[in-house]
């Protein structure tokens, strides 16, 4: 009981935090609701700015987790706290397909039952690390961009999946795309969908993916539609320069207004080039939407169980955003990673290590 910790969420934040805690001799249980750990990073091919393989970052994190008790398919259903610490109840979920039963055929109803609870387990520990991370903004909410309606409109995550598969990226008609558009700020900085905040990493992701498309098809024309480009970290600006100078990627300042589909499956874009002040209409073969961050679906639930404060944006507020950004305000409950807002992978790793350090000190001294 002395040195026990439960980490909720097995993305890069939770993995790094649990690894660091185990390294300091703590008994760590990591609860992950999906069947695998790795979170969003596991679905990514290469990372900005240096194009490192995402899998390598994950391998490094996994390396440190040898002594961590990882429970996957475990969705937290209740948290209680007492003088000895916390008890986390989790339902073990299994995919619906493995359970015999009538299958719903109704598409688009949004109410398919994917998982069925198979049983509950209790885990007890002296401290909790919350690392629920984020979800990608559901691009269907921007119906005017046609995701889920037009076959040649995909998200940045879909594109990474294609990169990862190693196959050629073709349009739904099986053609090599001659013109590709990237739309920045999809679901970010957009009051119309209720998200005023910047998702921070989509700008550089758009630049990285544009370069990757040019590498694959040097003769293709690539256009990035942006509001402004926030190249905030080391090497980002250089990457942006490279995209323009070496690869000839075009950057058009203007928010995409709406899309339509031509009979041949190509996509018509309507936007405004705000640098020339003119309305602009353009046809592309493939359109990539750079979906932003939203709080993970479990964040509201778990924050509710613990009575944690969330901002109007839905992300969890820490005790102090400058000096106590890993503390929740509840002794023994620590916050790490993207559940506090959009963050890059390198920042998530640094944040997780800081959390582990503070937590170790808490268990030693008993003071937050």
């Amino acid at each position, binding site marked *: 009981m002395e040195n026990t910790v439960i980490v909720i969420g097995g993305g890069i934040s939770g993995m790094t935090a649990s690894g660091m805690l185990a390294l300091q001799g703590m008994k760590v249980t990591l609860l992950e609701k999906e069947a695998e750990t790795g979170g969003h990073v596991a679905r990514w091919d290469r990372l900005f700015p240096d194009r490192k393989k995402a899998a390598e970052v994950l391998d490094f994190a996994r390396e440190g987790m040898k002594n961590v008790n990882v429970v996957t398919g475990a969705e937290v259903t209740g948290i209680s706290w007492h003088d000895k610490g916390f008890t986390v109840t989790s339902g073990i979920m299994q995919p619906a397909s493995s359970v015999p039963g009538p299958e719903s055929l109704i*598409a688009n109803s949004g109410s398919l039952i994917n998982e069925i609870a198979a049983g509950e387990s209790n885990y007890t520990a002296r401290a909790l690390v919350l690392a629920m991370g984020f979800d990608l903004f559901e691009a269907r909410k921007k119906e*005017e961009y046609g995701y*889920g309606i037009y076959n040649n409109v*995909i*998200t940045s995550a879909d594109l990474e999946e294609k990169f990862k598969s190693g196959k050629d990226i073709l349009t739904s008609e099986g053609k090599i795309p001659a013109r590709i558009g990237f739309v920045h700020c999809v679901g970010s900085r957009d009051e119309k969908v209720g998200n005023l905040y910047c998702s921070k990493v989509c700008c550089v992701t758009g630049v990285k993916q544009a370069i990757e498309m040019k590498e694959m098809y040097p003769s293709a024309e690539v256009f990035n539609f942006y509001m402004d480009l926030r190249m905030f970290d080391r090497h980002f600006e250089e990457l942006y320069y490279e995209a323009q100078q070496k690869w000839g990627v075009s950057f058009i300042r203007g928010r995409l207004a709406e899309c339509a589909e031509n009979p041949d499956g190509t996509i018509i874009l309507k936007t405004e080039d705000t640098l020339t002040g003119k309305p602009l209409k353009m046809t592309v073969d493939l359109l990539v939407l750079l979906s932003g961050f939203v709080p993970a679906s479990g964040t509201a639930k778990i924050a509710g169980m613990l009575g944690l404060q969330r901002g109007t944006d839905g992300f969890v507020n820490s005790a102090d955003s400058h000096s106590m950004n890993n503390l929740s305000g509840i002794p023994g409950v620590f916050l790490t990673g993207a559940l506090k807002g959009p963050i890059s992978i390198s920042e998530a790793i640094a944040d997780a290590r800081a959390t582990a350090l503070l937590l170790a000190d808490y268990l030693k001294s008993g003071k937050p």
Partner: protein
Amino acid sequence: MIKFNLFVLPFSFGLVFIVYSIVIHYYRWIKALPAVDKVKLASGVRNPSKVLASLKEIFLEGLLHRSLWKRNPLLGYMHMSFALGWFLLIVVGNLESRIYHGSHINAPYYPIFLKFFIHDRLVLFFEIFTVPAFFRFIMDFILLFVLSGLVLAFIKRKKSKWFGMTKTTNHSLYDRITLSCLWLIFPMRLLAESYTAGYFGGGGGFLTQNLGKLLVAITPGSSEMIAYFFWWSYSLVLGLFFILMPNSRYMHIPSEMLLIVFRHCGIQPKKWGSSFSSLEAHSCSRCGVCIDACQLNFAAGITNIQAVYFIRGLREQCVPENIALTCMVCGRCQEACPVGIKVDSLRLIKRREIGSGQVSDFSYLKNGHPGFADVVYFAGCMSHLTPSIPIAMEGIFKEAGVNYLFLDRSGSICCGRPLMLAGKDKQANELIEFNKILIRQTRAKLLVTSCPICYKVFREEYNLPIRIQHHSQYLLELVKDGRIALQSQHRRVVYHDPCDLGRGGNIYEAPRELLGKISDLVPAVKECADALCCGGSLGLLNTPVKKKDELTKNALEYLLKDRPDILVTACPLCKKTFSKHSGTEVRDIAEMVHDAIPGRLIRKTLAAKEPARLLAD
């Protein structure tokens, strides 16, 4: 017989003033009418059936307050007791005064202060069956009737909920002073008549005589001076009320009468305003019924822009810009208004004054022949933000084998209504003229639109020689003509009435009938004319998104109370607005119909994969 006393002067002066004032107002309103309306008025007042209809409505609405009765009986009774009671006091009082004075030309004050001049006693028992005693009884009874309304008015100050009102008007100081005068008139009359009857030992009815006895008994040093004091007070509050009235809310009394006549003569509000609109503004009684109807009040906590305050601003000739612009033009207040004031048109007239100065350049619009078709389909700009609607419509057109033309497929030109809602009619007219040419060129017999906003403006502003239908009407017609066969999916759906389709276009039945065929329609808590706005209104020009979000969430609470599977609407803007906050799927009626075409469902299930996976491997 004495027929004069100095105390009648304040009343008489007030009476002359108010009569003069009303005559001047009437004269100005009629004189300022546009020529066409003058012709309508002249022929209308010569038409006995129109005159009769006007008189009937003046009686039903002005005196009985029928529409308030329908809203809440207590509220109806309160207003009726004041209006009808006072009216009867004047009429019956006049008849009563004639018993004592043969002449037809009495001084106007004479019936009002009759009990001061006449205080004969009942000597013999049988005299209670005489005409004067009858009148005394009736007059006391009417006075009691009015006073009962006064008591209710006091109660309403504290317990407005009993009267069906959650929020009441925040009146100006001037109105409150005028109201105090009005409220004092009847107790003063009661005291004056009672004390006089008590002092002289006669002349009163069951109420005034007995109260009079009591008053004289309890007042030390009873004297004629006290009676004078009451009569002076009565006359002063009457006179003061008359002097304050033309600039107060009570000007609605004479104004509404003329307004009813104008309406029966077929006079309509004009786009840029006319004396009809000024008359409408004066006809507002500031009852505040519009406040409860307004979603900005009950869902977003904005309480200073409602119709009552906007119209008060119009009368005072100072409407702050934010009051004119903060309004969804959803028509709910107009629907609730007991006087039937066309608030939306008043609001738009004001917006035209504010917005007409700006210039727009539409030179980028390209001319070109759109082609020919039987049916011209106009999706509207909003439908371009919800592409699943035009996609469904095109699927249906193809299924039904319709020779159609998608007019705004690639270059959508605005129908003009958003500009009109912002008061920019001149700019809107440029677009309207442009679209009219395009529509005419198609030689289509029917124009179908997916957007209620466009539908309203096509019908009201375009003057097109062809039929205009919203797609909910059109799709129902296709089903009835057997051109498409539908199969019910038996999903529980709730239908949301878009403002411009329901209150704006009076289409409530077609979408319900259509949905009844393809789903299990459950009623919404507030629907049809009482339906709420989704909060996305293009009319709401200067309200922060957060407030709009509150409106949307509130409307969703009502709509989703019965936990339907799908929230169906018939407007792309409503769909877009609700989708932002709804946990329940939101769909347009066209999508519902498209999915109900047999065979569609299976095809769709097969195709409903992630788009990424559809990219050829």
